[in-house]
């Protein structure tokens, strides 16, 4: 086994960190969800079995949060995929020298620090005289309070659209030019070319982006936390992952209910594990592994 010392050494830092911050947390989330760990019992938690899950089901707000989550995921996803597709098509329909700068511009929301990005939204949506939206509509309101869902979905959507845009753009570029020439020779209009040639070939990328973003939207809450923190008012935009975070880690609601939060997170973790294992299955994994050609270390 000494001959495997070298690969072992190369892999050990990564393996250690992955064990520490992926594997242990997955197990810990499940384990913690069976305890009554909270601010008051931090020193001395005890096992409570499925109590957290029972509490969860008995929570009168569970339905509200569940519906919020569905709404958030479905609408944001629709915006992300739709806008991503629209951007990929539009930037492909104009000359390259215009297309690329626009694609780059759409990367900005994603690479700007989220705190700054959200602050801009807050500013634009503020009351008159500061807020641009109030100014344009001539109605002075804090639109973040008046239309929180629109704000949440647009803010997330402007960040998420670039993912689909880039993937769809690569897919469009991979289409053989001959197909476009053939369509042109056959007398197809631009719209017909897009509908009959481009869109059918984008079916797989669209499915991939949808599947991928569903999982990441289900668990992400960073922008909602910054934008509305689940408000305004009572749980208006509180989604599942944010609720878990609030229960377990937020200091605003007084007592921190770690075990209950862990139970909510555990649901997401299990979904995450199952879905990502499923990705591995549909991926052509074997094709990605080839045998090394060197047998010494």
């Amino acid at each position: 086994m000494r001959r495997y010392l070298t690969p072992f050494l190369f892999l050990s830092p990564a393996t250690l960190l992955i064990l520490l911050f992926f594997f242990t947390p997955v197990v810990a989330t499940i384990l913690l969800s069976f305890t009554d760990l909270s601010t008051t019992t931090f020193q001395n938690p005890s096992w409570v079995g499925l109590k957290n899950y029972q509490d969860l089901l008995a929570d009168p707000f569970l339905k509200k949060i569940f519906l919020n989550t569905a709404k958030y995921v479905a609408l944001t996803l629709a915006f992300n995929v739709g806008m991503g597709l629209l951007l990929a098509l539009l930037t492909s329909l104009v000359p390259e020298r215009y297309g690329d700068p626009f694609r780059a511009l759409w990367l900005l929301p994603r690479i700007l620090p989220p705190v700054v990005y959200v602050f801009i939204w807050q500013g634009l949506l503020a009351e008159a005289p500061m807020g641009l939206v109030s100014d344009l509509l001539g109605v002075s309101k804090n639109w973040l309070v008046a239309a929180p869902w629109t704000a949440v979905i647009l803010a997330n959507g402007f960040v998420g659209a670039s993912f689909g845009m880039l993937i769809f753009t690569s897919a469009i570029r991979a289409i053989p030019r001959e197909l476009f020439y053939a369509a042109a020779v056959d007398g197809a209009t631009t719209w017909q070319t897009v509908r009959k040639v481009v869109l059918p070939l984008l079916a797989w990328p669209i499915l991939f982006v949808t599947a991928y973003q569903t999982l990441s939207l289900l668990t992400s809450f960073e922008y909602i936390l910054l934008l509305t923190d689940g408000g305004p008012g009572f749980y208006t935009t509180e989604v599942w992952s944010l609720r878990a975070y609030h229960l377990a880690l937020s200091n605003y609601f007084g007592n921190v209910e770690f075990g209950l939060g862990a139970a909510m997170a555990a649901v997401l973790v299990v979904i995450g594990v199952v879905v990502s294992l499923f990705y591995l299955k549909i991926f052509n994994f074997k094709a990605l592994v080839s045998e090394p050609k060197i047998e010494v270390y």
Partner: protein
Amino acid sequence: MPLLPKNWPLWLLVLVLITLPIGVGLLWLFLTALFDQVHGLRPVGDFSPENWRFFTEGSVGGRPSIWVALKNSILFAAAVATLEVLIASMAAYAISRMKFPFRTPYLGMILVLHAFPAVSLLIAIYYILRVLGLFDTLIGVILVKASLELPLGIWLMKGFFDQLSWDMEMAALVDGASRWTVFWKVALPLVRPGILALGTFALLSAWGEFILPFTFIVSGKSWTLALYMQSFMREAFVDYGLMAAVGLFYAAPVLLLFLLGQRYLLNIYSGGVKG
């Protein structure tokens, strides 16, 4: 597309319209940071140095100095990027170029973790950091951030190592190198595009990182710029001018990189970096 439609200026116009919010948002940030007041997008009053008082005032409203936060942010981003690139490269090199038992399952695990949404683990990680005594330390957050992005990094770097020529590596071994030497002297210099891509991605991602420091850091002395800026958002009275100035200062490196290297950024993010 290979054939441009005749009416492409029309499509360009549509593109301009739907992209307008991004441009307007940035413009708003600039104007608000520079002027006393901005109504909509109309500056009212003069250039306002008042907005930039955080530079000279040691502490704004009891906060730590912005220089402390800046130092922490630089430290955080640099450390995360360095760790991530180094550790991911080592692991990716082994996976791509060496034979060892369970190599395929290991790669499968990396792929699964790459798709796995790591934010769902924050609650448990909080607990683990407490147990390790790393809660409320910059080191703790650095380790967490670097670790959570490792699967992506390993996957990305593996792709680059896969393309290296086997002949060259064999030549280096015959020339007298160990695998360790090959890694440092031959393989790493040749995957420089990958290191740059992953490094840029890691720097940008760590520079903007909010949720991890927000969750795992309490003390002002360990605040990053993200926490510094967010602390203003929690206040009842919002000083837009001051916040816009802080925001502009905080986002400046990102905007600069964007202006200088759009095409490069596009390439990196098109390379399958997770969104």
